[in-house]
């Protein structure tokens, strides 16, 4: 941002200005060229330096989050990203004949490990063609990776190239332009994004920064990718339609339900949606697409909770919070159908600064879910399903971070919440169990002393029994003496004459 636009921002939106200032002051960017870091970043090698350059060229948004990853993970993910980018560039290129494309795509996992391999047959308009022209740099760097990293990268490449080749073949040979069912849409997103998520989980596990079982969390990893991909597919509606690329499934946009709601038939063509006279029907389709994406949100939150490394967490969480913010921006926004829309810079900066732990991230999700819900109107055919999806995010937050626990407050519990009573009861139970356990331990540890004390007490008790006997004897003596005395008196009275 230039000085003039910053000044303008200060005057028009001082809060945003403040956020950006704080972002520039407090948010450190990793400098991959720093000499002390060379052993991790590989900046000292010309081939790797070229790779870092390509990362900056191909992806503005991902480049900074990738560099943030600790130690060598940044370099590994950078290379992983470039391999998949290369694959994508072949798939995207409509100037390549199908035969050629199939051949390159289906053997990309071999090319990517062939010394000196590069590809310069991409059309001149292909944005990232230079990456493939100089692909030998990526090959060289890949070969320096530890086998546990390389295995994951090659494995993902194999799966993705097969999926992309299938879709490209179908599109170029059958003339079929649309994805039909929601399941097809999910599968397409799985190939281009879900697999990226699965591979990343594999890399995190391989690095030892995350638990080895993360690599097996395929369903959640897939959802992480799908949530981002679907958000982009929704936002890029106009750009894609103008370039005759259609990723929205016909089952959603062509559904009669959305036509019926305004007394028309369902859409026949995706470009009908941006015509002003179709605004209402298009809005309903747009809502249904947002709802479809929103269903992955709690999976993404589940995944984020599994992470333990801070740099991995930031890397994963930032794109997710950006995605839910973007979805919120797109929801019921007619501008999305006309042009490219983006969340504001200050909003992005604020999200980056706040996406630091799963609790805060889930509260960000909840906040956006509430905004989506507030924008939703009952006339929308997806009204209740959207309320339910937003409710599910609220539920997730409440299940994982229950609101009766006060974080950072003076007390631990919110006393007006009924669940606090359960917590107190539980605390009391734990306290008692602990006490009993301690008592038992103490008794066991001092068994000798206890035994001695018990023996002593037994002895004392048996001695304590004696006084009763003494008392009884004393009683008997007193009794006998008494009886004797009375008898003596009577005898005396009988026998002593002078007493009569």
């Amino acid at each position, binding site marked *: 941002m230039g000085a003039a636009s910053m000044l303008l921002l200060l005057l028009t939106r001082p809060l945003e200005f403040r956020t950006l200032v704080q972002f520039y002051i407090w948010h450190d960017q990793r400098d991959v060229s720093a000499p002390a870091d060379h052993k991790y970043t590989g900046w000292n090698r010309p081939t790797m330096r070229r790779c870092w350059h390509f990362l900056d060229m191909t992806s503005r948004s991902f480049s900074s989050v990738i560099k943030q990853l600790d130690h060598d993970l940044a370099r590994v993910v950078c290379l992983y990203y470039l391999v998949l980018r290369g694959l994508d560039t072949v798939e995207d290129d409509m100037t390549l004949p199908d035969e050629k494309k199939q051949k390159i795509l289906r053997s990309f996992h071999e090319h990517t490990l062939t010394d000196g391999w590069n590809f310069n047959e991409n059309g001149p308009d292909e944005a990232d063609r230079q990456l493939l022209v100089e692909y030998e740099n990526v090959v060289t760097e890949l070969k320096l990776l530890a086998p546990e990293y390389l295995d994951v990268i090659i494995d993902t490449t194999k799966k993705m190239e097969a999926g992309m080749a299938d879709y490209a073949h179908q599109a170029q040979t059958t003339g079929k332009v649309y994805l039909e069912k929601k399941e097809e849409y999910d599968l397409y997103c799985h190939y281009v994004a879900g697999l990226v998520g699965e591979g990343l989980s594999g890399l995190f596990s391989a690095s030892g920064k995350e638990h080895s079982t993360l690599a097996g969390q395929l369903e959640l990893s897939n959802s992480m990718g799908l949530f981002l991909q679907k958000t982009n597919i929704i936002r890029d509606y106009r750009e894609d339609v103008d370039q005759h690329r259609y990723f929205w499934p016909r089952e959603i946009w062509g559904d009669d339900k959305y036509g019926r709601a305004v007394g028309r038939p369902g859409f026949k063509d995706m470009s009908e949606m941006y015509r002003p006279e179709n605004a209402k029907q298009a809005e309903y389709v747009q809502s249904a697409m947002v709802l479809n994406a929103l269903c992955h949100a709690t999976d993404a939150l589940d995944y984020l909770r599994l992470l333990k490394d801070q740099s991995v967490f930031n890397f994963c969480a930032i794109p997710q919070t950006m995605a839910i913010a973007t979805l919120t921006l797109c929801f019921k926004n007619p501008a999305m159908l006309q042009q490219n829309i983006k969340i504001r810079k200050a909003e992005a900066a604020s999200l980056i600064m706040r996406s630091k732990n799963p609790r805060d991230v889930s509260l960000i999700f909840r906040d956006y879910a509430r905004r989506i819900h507030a924008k939703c109107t009952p006339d929308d055919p997806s009204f209740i399903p959207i309320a339910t999806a937003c409710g599910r995010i609220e539920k997730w937050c409440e299940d994982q971070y229950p609101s009766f626990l006060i974080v950072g407050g003076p007390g631990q519990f919110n006393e007006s919440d*009924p669940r606090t009573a359960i917590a107190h009861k539980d605390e009391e139970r734990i306290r008692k169990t602990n006490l009993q356990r301690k008592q038992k331990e103490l008794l066991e540890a001092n068994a000798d002393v206890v035994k001695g004390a018990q023996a002593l007490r037994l002895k004392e008790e048996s001695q304590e029994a004696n006084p009763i006997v003494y008392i009884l004897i004393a009683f008997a003596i007193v009794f006998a003496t008494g009886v004797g005395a009375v008898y003596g008196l009577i005898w005396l009275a009988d026998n002593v004459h002078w007493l009569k």
Partner: protein
Amino acid sequence: MATESFQSYLVTGGSGLLGQHIVKLLRSRYPYAPVAVFDLVPSDQDEGVRSFVGDITDRNALEKAVKECKATCIFHTVALLQGPLRDIQMNVNYGGTVNVLSVARVQSVPKLVFTSSASVVSDGKAQVGIDESLPYPPKPFDVYNETKALAEQDVLHANGHGGLSTVSLRVAGLFGPGDKLTVPGFMSMLVAKKTHIQFGDNTNLFDWTYIENAAHAHLLAAERLNPDHPKFSEVAGQAFFITNGEPIPYWDFGRELWKAVGHVPSKITVIPRSVGILIATIMELVSWFTGRPAVLTRFRIMIFCTTRWCSIEKARKALDYEPPVPLHEGIRKAAECWQTHQAPPNN
């Protein structure tokens, strides 16, 4: 399940909303099992269903019915909702249950499924994602909650005594076709043209249960009261929250109902909770002076603005309960039924 066909079912309140649906589901799932109904009014929904007419507070009438149909499983759904005098509610809700328990013991009925309410643990305050570990409140919110809580405790204590196994299902926000409380309540706002008014910020999640889902849960519970069932020990003597598992902000429910009968409010006026309480207080005061019932009470404002949803994880695990009818579909069915049978003619 084969063993379910050898049961003989008796549904108390079988002509009521939930009772009818339980009977219907029993008939379709176990077509060879005898089903009987005990209710104030005779049941005419199905010729294969035996109907006993009687009052739940009349122990002899109940015993006669249980004896005659040789019941092996009782669904006790009879309850008087909010409204009538304390004594009557106490007699029906609590006294009626005491009768059912006593008859079940004397007649050696092995299974009892009790229809409870999620409000047995309510003290009127917010309930965010509560589960069954929550104790009964020291001060019940109203007479209905109090009587249902008393009855539920007796039912659960009776489990395991004299060969009787019991379970209590705490249904939340029951609604469905033919319902006389929830759907007509929202529809009365439509008839009164008050749909544009919203009390509170509508972020408070609220739980609802479609009637068929509730009936489904009852049958699942009855199946599991068989000592041979692997989940028997997780179910007998237990209370379960039953909902649709889809809590949504309170007002959304009404708006979807209204939409289903062709009405979408064009503009919504939001009245904050505190203002609502103030208005209701004034109205209640006026009502106290004039003797006319208040349109708006503090009780209703509380309902509108309070978060009330619970976890159904326990039912999911022990009863294998998964609500078959999603919320939006249930709302559509309920609204359609209201429009054909209950809507005022000029609407």
